[in-house]
């Protein structure tokens, strides 16, 4: 069984946000205009989170790309009253938008704040609707959505491998953010395979995870800057 995970090398990351826009395009994320943005109602399944430390001139700023951590012990699934969010057998924290009742317990429980509530019906101008990704459903008002590790790509890749009568290869399945990264800072793969790139990198000296003390066991690893 696979256990999907991601590694983000902050030393190579340029904070360009290609991952952010690639995700918006891939996953039909609603257009959020200036008014709703000002209310903090933006939806970004992956987003750059700033950590500003120190005072001028001794300042250190880190910009950390933060998708869903796909925790092995996710706090969000434990509070969902309708089993709309759960940990699937391959380690992906899934969200069934159509089962969600919009109670937002999970958005509160998630320490990484990666669960997003649809405050209104997502809308696109007529001129743009045809450009939506046909592989991903559109959400409705009042449901929670989140990063799926582009799970629809996994489904497609599996179908394809099956049709070609072969096993799923590591390069068959890559989320949109990892695919687009210009500096090659993002890696994706099977953490259960000890020889996979992600698995090896996750054991590197520079590896760390966000808020490890909470015991959520995230499957997104970071490699710190510097030597």
């Amino acid at each position, binding site marked *: 069984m696979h256990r999907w995970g991601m590694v983000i090398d902050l*030393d*190579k*990351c*340029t*904070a*360009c*946000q*290609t991952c*952010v*826009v*690639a995700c*918006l*395009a*891939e996953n039909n994320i609603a257009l*959020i*205009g*200036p008014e709703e*943005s*000002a209310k903090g109602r*933006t939806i*970004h399944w992956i987003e*750059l989170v*700033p950590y*500003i430390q*120190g*005072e*001028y*001139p001794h*300042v250190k*700023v880190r*910009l950390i790309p933060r998708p869903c951590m796909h925790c092995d012990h996710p706090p969000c699934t434990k509070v969902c009253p309708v089993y709309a969010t759960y940990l*699937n057998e391959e380690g992906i924290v*899934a*969200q*069934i938008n*159509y*089962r969600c009742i919009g109670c937002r317990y999970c958005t509160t429980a998630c320490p990484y704040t990666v669960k997003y509530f649809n405050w209104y019906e997502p809308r696109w*101008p*007529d*001129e*743009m*609707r*045809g*450009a*939506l990704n*046909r*592989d991903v459903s559109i959400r409705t008002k009042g449901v929670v*959505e989140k990063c*799926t590790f582009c*799970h*629809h790509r996994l*489904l*497609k890749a599996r179908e394809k491998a099956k049709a070609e009568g072969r096993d799923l290869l590591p390069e068959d399945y890559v989320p949109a953010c990892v695919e*687009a990264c*210009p*500096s*090659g*800072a993002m890696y994706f793969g099977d953490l259960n395979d000890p020889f996979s790139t992600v698995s090896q990198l996750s054991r590197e000296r520079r590896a760390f995870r966000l808020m490890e003390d909470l015991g959520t066991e995230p499957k997104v690893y970071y490699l710190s*800057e510097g*030597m």
Partner: protein
Amino acid sequence: MKLSRRDFLKMGGGIGVGIALGGGFWKWGQPPPSSKLLPPGIEKWVPTVCGQCLGGCGILVRMIDGWATNIIGNPLHPINRGALCPKGIAALQGLYDPDRIRSPLKRIGKRGEGRWQPISWKEAIQEISNQLRELRENGEPHKLVVLGGRYRGLMRLLWERFLEVYGSPNYIDNQFRWDGIPMEGLFLTQGIHTLFTFDFENVKYLLSFSAPLLDSYWFPIHALKAFGQFRRGRTGQRGRLVQIEPRLSITGMKADEWIPIQPGTEGILALGIAHMIIKEGLYDKEFVLKNTFGFENWVDSKEQTHIGFHDFVLSEFPPQRVSSKTGIPIDTIIRLSREFATNQPSLAIGYRDRPFHQMAVWALNGLVGAIDRRGGILIPKSIPFQPFPSPSKDRAARKGLERKRIDEVRESPFGIDQPYLFAKNSISGIPYRPKILFLYYSNPFFSNPCPEFFQRAFDQIPFIVSFSPYMDDTTQYVDLILPDHTPLERWQDDPLFLNNGFPVLGIRQPVTPPIHQTRATGDVLIDLARSLGGEIEKAFPWKDFKEVLLYGLKGIYESRRGDVFGLEYDEAWIRMLQRGGWWDPSYKSFEEFWELLLEKGGWWDPIYEFGERERIYKTPSKKFEFYSQGIKGVLLSSKGEEDSSFLPHWEESVPKEEEKYPFILNIFKTMALDGRNANQPWLQGILGPHLFEKWATWVEINPITASKYDISDGDWVWVESPHGKIKVKARLYQGAMPHVVNIPFGNGHRTGGRWSKKIGENPYRLLGLELDSLTGQPIHGNTRVKIYKA
């Protein structure tokens, strides 16, 4: 096909996902714009070249049912090898922007009022050709001016050809960018006007003087992609980046060290570092001896002695002086000079500062021999397009071409065009006033400092035509709009090169038929020539721009160089063959070549020849010049014989009215918006990640300074300069220097579509018109402002 909710859940472990179901599943808002070439729901990936900025990335556009539904990098394109920057993906929103100009528009109200009458293409072309004919009949063809912006390829030659046979010397290149390519530094030291590249991937120590590497580099993908390699692509060697800049930018955050510097003093710091390198004897003595001119004192043919860079820098730029001007401690200057000189290969890069400041940074590269070497400055070979046959000109054209250019550029030392002088002369009418103005890829009312100046110039021009696909501040002010296709709808060539100097030619092809009643400007130009008739028509024997492209490509086919794009390992194979005098491309005929170009995305020549001195050094001495003899010939009359005028030196711009305007204004650019693309919501949503800023213009203020002025985070404030004021949101930022305030450029369009109009403010409205005497461009970082609560 219909799915019940239950089916849906069963199918995918239910992660909110529908598999590609194609046609019937969606109820689309409107029928697809093109005829269906593919069966419903079947995807096709069409290779083309992104046109969102000048990076030149190869892209694959995912077409389903005639709609472009996604964009990824073309894995075969050597510039990006499958990667992209955020702008590339947002091209979808540029294509489907609901507020695009949908047909030619004729102004019916007053200028700038925004009342338009849609007209047909036939009428539009008729109208322009009437105007053009009249101008020629009056014997004033030189009064046609084309203001062109940032784009690449044969289109430029086509414009110049049109003007040549029409009889106007006035193609004006309006590429205003402080963060643009520092070309003057290259010209002063190496005598070259064309582009160069930095071989980032092989650099060990990168010293950046406010270069916006990861913020808004001129070819973003080149820097972004190289950064990963620079950091961790080589075993056992991690590249070190030091960012010297007045503001903690993204580049500064990602650098190993950020050194805040007084704005505008980067040049003197470079000279201070040069001073220490020379004093400690750390420079590359062999390179300096063999390949440079003007390092030591020298004697000219009249037996007059001139001071060299060595003595000049030692006497003029001791660390004490440099430290007091820049605010950087002496020990840091000493440390930087030692690090820079001893960590080879090292490279110093700057921004488009004043020419001799650029030259100061370039001189550092000369000291360590970072010219034409791995991890240095490279000069790529050009792409062998077939040149257009020289056109025959009629009497009117020949007479028009004898006239002086309106921006008097032939007298300009760097040979770069001077859009400000064009505006000034249009206002004054000396030497003459333009009568017809074409705007191509140019929006001076927004993206040039002091936009009002251009507006005053435009008031003097009776007939203005814009070719912009979107409504923008300048297009709003014209008489006729002939909307161009967006890049995803047109044919174009994109000649560029890799960081390692390999020439690359991307082919831009339409992924979809035009969505609206727009036409490619290249095709329109050919039509115009045809309707003017005579010699003008004869100079354009092509049916449309695609034929022009094919004509140019013949030269590449016949050059017996390079091959169409292939996998990375093909590179070594092609190189090996060519070195051995062989050439074995994947194609046998021109038709096959063309088909493969469209399929793979382009052509490249994966070879860089080191040591071809005549290509690298085009200076009078055929060497790297610490003492610029090239500029001396031009400037002698105005600047006198003073040697220091031709050596890298520092020109202080004196701060004015410090009591009234206590802050220095620093305008920066972001990855998302560099003047274009504000009509794309995805990019508006990622403007300032370090402060969570989206859809806005903000001003970054040091928190201690802000508390002195009683300004809190998020307050609305006025930023006022002697030239104007704007109301923006104050953001307290530890990465701001206490006496410098920082404002991003990119928003503040006064007109445009629903996503760009009246979002934020344009900081260029705070700038004055103090121009650099050498380049004719506004001077960077000498505007002071005050701030008060709104």
